[in-house]
């Protein structure tokens, strides 16, 4: 089984860094071997397509801009008016690819194109406000919300998994730039690379 190489390579060093405080303010973890797939629809409103997919994947509802849908192995996000994205284990990915007919839409596997980090800690929202211009207050970006946006001109996908936990995905080729920004900005909070 071939191993997918992380774009961070030797730059990701485990341990505690930055300010030495009683509580580590931020944790950073890389998620590897994930599936990220985008599905675009000709008619994003199509009710029959939506119900077919919802049933197939076992999700409660169709994903909306602020509501991700959890399924076994991953989540389904709505990233554009006519596009959804699957993020998680590889299993459901195959179901999706098989389920969408060319007359309904198109599927693009993008698992290798992204670097995927999971960020946590009491100061994680504070940290993100250093690079993200989004309103991250609880009412504006609640748990379950996702957004495509940018940090210093580099595109990112942000998902709020919990009050103090986020997923951050960005392009493989820009990974080191964002990794450096993250490490530098997190230093003031004391951070740990898990």
């Amino acid at each position, binding site marked *: 089984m071939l191993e997918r190489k992380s774009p961070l390579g030797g730059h990701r060093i485990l341990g505690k860094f930055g300010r030495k405080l009683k509580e580590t303010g931020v944790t950073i973890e890389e998620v590897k071997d994930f599936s990220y797939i985008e599905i675009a629809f000709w008619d994003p409103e199509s009710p029959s397509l939506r119900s077919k997919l919802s049933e197939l994947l076992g999700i409660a509802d169709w994903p909306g801009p602020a509501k991700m849908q959890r399924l076994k192995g991953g989540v389904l996000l709505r990233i554009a008016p006519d596009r959804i994205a699957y993020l998680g284990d590889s299993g459901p990915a195959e179901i999706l690819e098989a389920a969408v007919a060319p007359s309904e839409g198109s599927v693009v596997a993008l698992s290798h194109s992204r670097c995927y980090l999971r960020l946590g800690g009491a100061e994680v929202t504070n940290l993100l406000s250093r690079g993200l211009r989004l309103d991250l207050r609880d009412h504006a970006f609640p748990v379950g919300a996702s957004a495509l946006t940018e940090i210093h001109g580099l595109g990112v996908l942000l998902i709020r998994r919990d009050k103090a936990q986020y997923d951050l995905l960005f392009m493989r080729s820009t990974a080191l730039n964002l990794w*450096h920004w993250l490490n*530098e900005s997190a230093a003031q909070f004391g951070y740990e690379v898990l």
Partner: protein
Amino acid sequence: MSTDRQKLRIGGGLVDRGKPVTFRFDGRVLKGFAGDTLASALLANGRHLVGRSFKYHRPRGIFAAGVEEPNALVELGAEDRLTPNVQATAQELYEGLQAKSQNRWPSLRFDLMAVNNLFSRFLTAGFYYKTFMWPAGAWEFYEKFIRRAAGMGKGTHLPDPDTYEHVHDHADIAVVGSGPAGLSAALTAAEAGKDVLLIEQDFELGGTLLYEAGEIAGQANADWRRQTIARINGEPKIRVLTRTTAFGYYENNILGCVERVQDHVLTPDPHVPRQRLRHVRAEKVILATGAFERPFVFGNNDLPGILLSSAAEAYVNRYAVLPGEKMVLYTNQESGYRVAASLLERGIRLAAIIDARSPVPTRHHHFAREAGIPLYPAHEVAEAKGGLHLKGLVIRKIGDGLEPRDIRLDCDTLIQSAGWAPVLHLQSQRGIKPVYHAALDSYLPGKCADGQHACAGAAAGYPTSEDAAVHGHKVARYLIGAAKTAPRLYAPKDAPPPSPAPVPLTRAKCFVDLQHDVTRSDIEQGVREGFRSPEHIKRYTTQGMAADQGKTGNINTLKILSQVQDKEQSGVGTTTFRPPYTPLTIGAVAGRSIAGELRPTRLSPFHDCHVRAGAEFITAGDWLRPWYYPGPGEDVTAAYIREAGEVRSGVGMVDVSTLGKIDIQGPDAAEFLNRVYVNGWKTLPVGKARYGLMLRDDGMVMDDGTTWRLGEHHYFMTTTTTGAGAVMRHLEYLLQIDWPELKVHLTSVSDEWGGVAIAGPRSRAVLGSSFPGVDVSTEAIPHMGVLEFDHEGLPVRICRLSFSGELAFEVYTRAGFAGNLWDLLTEGGKPHDLRLYGSEALGALRIEKGHVAGPELDGRTTADDLGLGGMQSTKKAYVGSVLKNREGLIRNDRRQLAGLKPVEGDTPLKAGMLLFEGDGITPKGHGIGHVTSVTYSPELKRHIALALLAEGRERVGTLIRAVDNGGATVIDVKVCSPHFIDPEGERLHA
């Protein structure tokens, strides 16, 4: 020599006597306390003289207690943290602080440059336009001395050791200022459930409550302050930012703020930024920015020992420092007496009060009598007297005429209060001009409130802390929608008595702008010379242009303009306020976007492979690409010549991952390609690729690339590296805006796939060895053929296409497996002597073949210019198909792609050289074309170039000249076909 004595320190105040602080000023060790500013600590130690003025080098002392300070500018810190022009009145004192006075030599007390004072007649307004003009060439000689004599403070050229960052804040309400109005507004909004951001430039909350005597709702200011701050600290909806200045107010209600995180520690924590630039986005903004006190204009009003009365109150009540031993008050305001009473409470009796009003209200007469303070009603200060410090005043009765009777008063301190100027800079930055209110003799904000913001408290003209607190509450209620009536600017019920600010007859200099040494006579001179508007006067005299931006001088200037031009004050207008409100470090603006982070670089998925192979890198657009792989002792030239030769004679591998890659799917994909490319796409079968050229709507070539058909409705498009983003935007524009009926989906897969090109006569053999079991014959992969397969788990996509002109294959895999692919190919390449080549060699190879790239696709060339006219279909319409036929674009004297060979084969040409006829006439004008790409051809063993040359195809075989260095370099070149080698393309089918 150190001294422990803070001889002017008195009791009380808010300084922390439990935390003594040691600091140095001009080399002397002095003591203060936590809670001092540098200015208050200097005053406590009896140090008034803190600098020398800009032009005249006159002795200057501490004038104010805040950011309006014009005189007390010091050089703070040392070495790489040396910062000039720091206001001592705003600099928090910290242990180990080092500061030096500026603009003097050899010392503050004895400054040789004070000789400028003697030449002051020649240094008046606009002197630099009139002096040092002759002889014409001598300016550069004068300039050296003038530069040394002028300027304030010295900076450092050492790299900044600190870091800075930007932060993005969001709030429902942003409150700027934490005086009574700001504190009140913040609490009102928070208690109504709003997220509030309270922004305060000082290190303590409270504004005027920190020192001003007064009452709010029956409570003394100090108690109300303490209680309110406790409530605020217990209120989770309020975020407090101290040491943070809102320096700019921008479109969409955005405030630019700078937070001074570590400017109050000697050794900053390296993990924490020194300063933060905060972008505050609030639904509503409340400007509770207070008001500046105005000074009088009189002779020698710049002597050390002359302060604003509110500053004196701050030094006494907040910092527990006595500004002087014998203090006189000069006022025309109620507030002057409030200060007098406040000082009296502290046991400080003024030596005299000079009141310019006539009559002075009775209650002030009472107060002075009760306090035993001599009062001089309807008097003005004509002149201050003193050398390095104030020694006395010459006062006169106003209206004494041309033969005044001078009264001499001895004193060492003059505190003055000539009126108030609301701090309306931020609102004014939003384009709302201030308005003059005659009743208050003051400029008030243009409006009190609108849907997005409001001014509150003293900033809206309210004179007392209680008025301000009430107004702040009203303003907050209005902005949060709890009150319908818009709050108003202050309008007194009864017009207060006029507050004259007389200008005495005196020969002594009457300063209007202390920091730039601008006097009243400079303003008058400017008007005489024809500069009448405030904008012109400002620039001609430099009033208001110093670091303090005229905070204590602007109003007086406007008043003088009104008097001198005999115009109504309201008709004079004001200058435009621009950010920043107070100076900003460039570091804060740059944040983390410095050095390597300024322009992020993208890395190929093969990057580590290149590093291991010893590559030298170069940036190409956003990307870092391998430039060449040096052999022992090789420079770039030796390396690329070798590498290119290895490709043509054997086989080479180059990283092509940086090309733009777009996944195209949908039933209308072929139709779409047909509309955007110049050639036909409907007949491209599955499993084949085609070279495509894209035009812009104006008929010029936009980009080129290769598109592969992977499935019935599935295509894989490549673009040039630098054109990728623009092409993607262009295609999405067409699909979403112009042709929404087409069912086509586009997804960038530039980062999903990584690829290399294997090129050279032995390239097929390398593929065969790398993928045993896969049929890589010419039948299986014909020219432009596509093959997809899985090799032991490695997904592979191959297309036989060539940029170099040799037999070549582009081999892609998913980016995370790039290393595996590399290893596989290097292993498979071993028996065939596979070599690596970089972008320099790639360039040489494509130039030899005459393939166009960036320098030829410069947006000004048509397909025909590039010799690709034949690609353009005549059977269909496509983007650019109509306008490409405009007369100007089909003329045959256009600059066409041509090849150039210098007559002397070992003479290099340079890209950009202009081309001229070979007629021997001196080259003049723009020439007949230019050189676009150059290389040394390893194949032909000579220098060659591609060029865009007028009638290039007609001129094949002729001799022309390439010119450089403005005509100094002239090289004879022969025009030839741009396809220098293998023009029939036989090698592609090897």
